[in-house]
């Protein structure tokens, strides 16, 4: 038996889009806690713009759902669809590096490395003190 999670998606959310992006995550995800997907902006681009990043395995339906009309699923009946739709409008899948005015996504096969995806997004980690 093969896993249904055949792809890896790495999503870079500009710091000012985190609230909307979490509502989109609630729509596209599988848990009622998915509005906490994006929290701290721990990555930055070459210009110092900050991003919250999530990298996760996904089912192929993820890309289909990302392009369709959003719905409130049973696990997320309280989702704010207006915010989710605003975030959806910013999605760019496999179209280049992260910039502050888009939500850039690298979508690849499941065994691809999250770290490699982050390089493709043009991001690096912000150093955090232990």
């Amino acid at each position: 038996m093969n896993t249904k999670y055949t792809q890896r998606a790495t999503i870079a959310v500009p710091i000012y889009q985190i609230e909307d992006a979490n509502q989109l995550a609630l729509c596209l995800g599988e848990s009622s806690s998915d509005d906490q997907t994006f929290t701290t902006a721990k990555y930055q681009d070459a210009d110092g713009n900050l991003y919250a990043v999530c990298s996760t395995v996904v089912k192929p339906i993820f890309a289909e759902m990302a392009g369709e009309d959003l719905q409130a699923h049973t696990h997320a009946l309280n989702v704010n669809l207006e915010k989710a739709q605003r975030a959806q409008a910013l999605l760019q899948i496999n179209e280049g590096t992260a910039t502050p005015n888009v939500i850039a996504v690298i979508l690849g096969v499941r065994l691809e490395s999250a770290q490699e995806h982050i390089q493709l997004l043009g991001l690096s980690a912000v150093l955090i003190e232990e």
Partner: protein
Amino acid sequence: MRLGFGLGLQYSRLSGGGSGFTPSNLFSNGVRGAWYDPSDLSTLFQDAAGTTPVTTDGDPVGKMLDKSGNGNHAKQSVSGLRPIYRTDGTLHWLDGNGVDDFLITDAIAPIARDSTGIYFSMAAKSNQGTLRVSQYNASNSSRNFSTSGVIGDNVSSYNAGTQLASSFEAGKFAIVEFNRDNPHVFSFKWEGPNSYNKAQLNNETVIDSPETLASVGTFTSQPLEIFSINNGNLLTEGRIYGIFVIGDVLTETKSNSLKEYMASKVGITL
């Protein structure tokens, strides 16, 4: 084959650990702690509620049951932050991506205590940095235990032990550097007030901290975290094949048996 949760199998006959070694006995008589075993699929679930079992290579892990009997089950309720179950058909591990993956328990009573010390053992392979596991208070106002690390170009380093009230002060913790990508068993112990943090990488003693640790500060209830410290604030990328956190001072015989058992989990011979 799915092994049942909590079965008292004599693992020595299956996969190392020395004659008659039974890991669950390490937690008999009310010993606190946790035991996580990714090779036991009956303990892995895709969701935090524990309703959808992990069945195959590549499934996300939203819940990993604690096999110690203490009920310290580790969960991740956010679907995008879940580590991945991986297997090559022989070995079994959790893959943490170093970006956002981690598992965490509810706040639990401190495993490290003055009266019992702590023994920690992890079978691991780090891709970047050090495999972090902790029961840690971010405010540093209390003591708990932590493994953390520094990300270098070619090496990883463990910084592990029982924390002083203020921080892991220089010279008072256990630290060791090792080649990245080497599968290994990392162990450390602290035997209570006025003892040292001691650590081993496989069978090599890599540190006796130069100063004993006085009993300073309060042990408080904190979550136990896997792949992270400080509630997912610091994460690392790599594989975890098994974890024991034991609120007890192990005899050398038991310690050696446990290391041998963990070595079998990571596919090495000590």
